[in-house]
């Protein structure tokens, strides 16, 4: 009886391995495309809003939250008082791809997109300047434009005319 059970178990084991024949889970990566998960955290990039303007307002939050202190930027201001980064520098030999900068960013400008395979000969080559960081696309949030939501007046819109934006309250009439 016990021997019979052993034989059955043996057969079951053999059948289990045979069923796996040809069910290959290896991805031949450089030749075959890699299917990255949607929340993949690759290299941080600076994105633009749908109108093609850069999203970053140089608030320094990403730089402040970065645990490895690898983000450095200088703020500049345009004639219409809109702020932008004069320089934006990320040292990727220190970046740990934690994504905190992406979470901190109020304008969804800095985003960890899907680039992950980049290697250099020297550490110095890992320091990316703004022209290398800024991409032409909108990244993960194709329709979001910070200035269309915020209560800031732009060239073509006044305060209170944006998306989900209420007209400004007159503080004097609002008194109790």
């Amino acid at each position, binding site marked *: 009886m016990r021997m019979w059970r052993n034989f059955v178990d043996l057969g079951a*084991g*053999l059948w289990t*391995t*045979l069923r*796996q024949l040809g069910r290959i889970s*290896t991805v031949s990566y450089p030749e075959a495309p890699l299917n990255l998960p949607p929340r993949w955290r690759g290299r941080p990039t600076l994105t633009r809003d749908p109108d093609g303007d850069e999203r970053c307002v140089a608030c320094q939050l990403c730089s402040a939250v970065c645990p490895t202190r690898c983000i450095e930027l200088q703020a500049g201001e345009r004639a219409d008082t809109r702020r932008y980064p004069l320089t934006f520098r990320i040292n990727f030999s220190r970046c740990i791809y934690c994504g905190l900068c992406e979470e901190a960013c109020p304008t969804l400008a800095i985003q960890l997109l899907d680039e992950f395979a980049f290697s250099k000969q020297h550490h110095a080559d890992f320091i990316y300047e703004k022209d290398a960081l800024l991409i032409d696309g909108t990244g993960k949030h194709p329709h979001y434009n910070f200035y269309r939501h915020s209560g800031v007046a732009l060239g073509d819109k006044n305060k209170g005319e944006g998306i989900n934006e209420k007209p400004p309250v007159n503080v004097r009439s609002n008194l109790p």
Partner: protein
Amino acid sequence: MRLFLMILGMLLTTVILLGVAGFLVFAERRVLAFLQNRLGPNRLGPLGVGQALADALKLMSKENFVPDFADPVLYRAAPVLVAFSVLASFAVVPLDQHFSWAGNWNIGLLFILAMSSLNAYGVFMGGWASGNKFSLLGAVRAVAQLVSYELPLGLALLGVVLLSGSLSLNGIVAAQSLPFIVLQPLGFVIFMIAGVAETHRLPFDLPEAESELVAGFNTEYGGMRFGYFFLGEYLGMTLIAVLTALLYLGGWHGPWLPGWIWLLIKTGAVIFVFFWLRATLPRPRYDQLMGLGWKVLLPLALFNIMATALAAALWRLA
């Protein structure tokens, strides 16, 4: 002239067998990978076949190193003995009715058994001469295993010999109008299990047992000396597979295709079973291995012979 041609032919046979062994190393890695959801070596050449060549070149280009603490003569002789004994066994293996060196030799099967015993000497010499504890343990295990599994192997073969009335492989195949696996199912199973143990392949690879004995009897071997052991192992597997095909699966008998292709197909199928076993089964404990050999396989093999003899006698009476 005739002698010269014969030597040339033997050389050619040997080279082909070495090629087969190299290819089997590659094939095993590939098949094993497919059974384990992997791809295996697929870079070099079509489907990765070039990997066999690369492995061989790597082994050949390595230094032939003899450790200080090893017995230099035996250390050098052991791998050659292992490779020689297996290669010599192939002399009696017929590829077809008229295509073999000594297929008609009336003690062919005995010769193969003798050579496989010689193989055990080679393994033991290698482990002993290495002067290493792991090697010695591996060698002791190898000898105990080979000796205790040679008995059921030989006794299982005796059933085939009883049925066919011949010890030459040609004669045995000629006697199989019905493949002997039908008449000797128990003998077939015993032969397969004992064959796996005889070539010390997984799951009965206790002489090598990477996870406990480093590499067993070939721990101290490197380069082409290790290559010889490797060759011996893979050719031994081929030998057992060919024997299974010849003795139990009807050899070159089969419809439509030429005989030698049938033999190759059957051999390939048996070799696949070897790979399959390797991918599936874990290694037993040593006492379990010995227990299986002496307490299960040997009595079963004896029973098989008695039953075969009785059936044959009754058949003759009737």
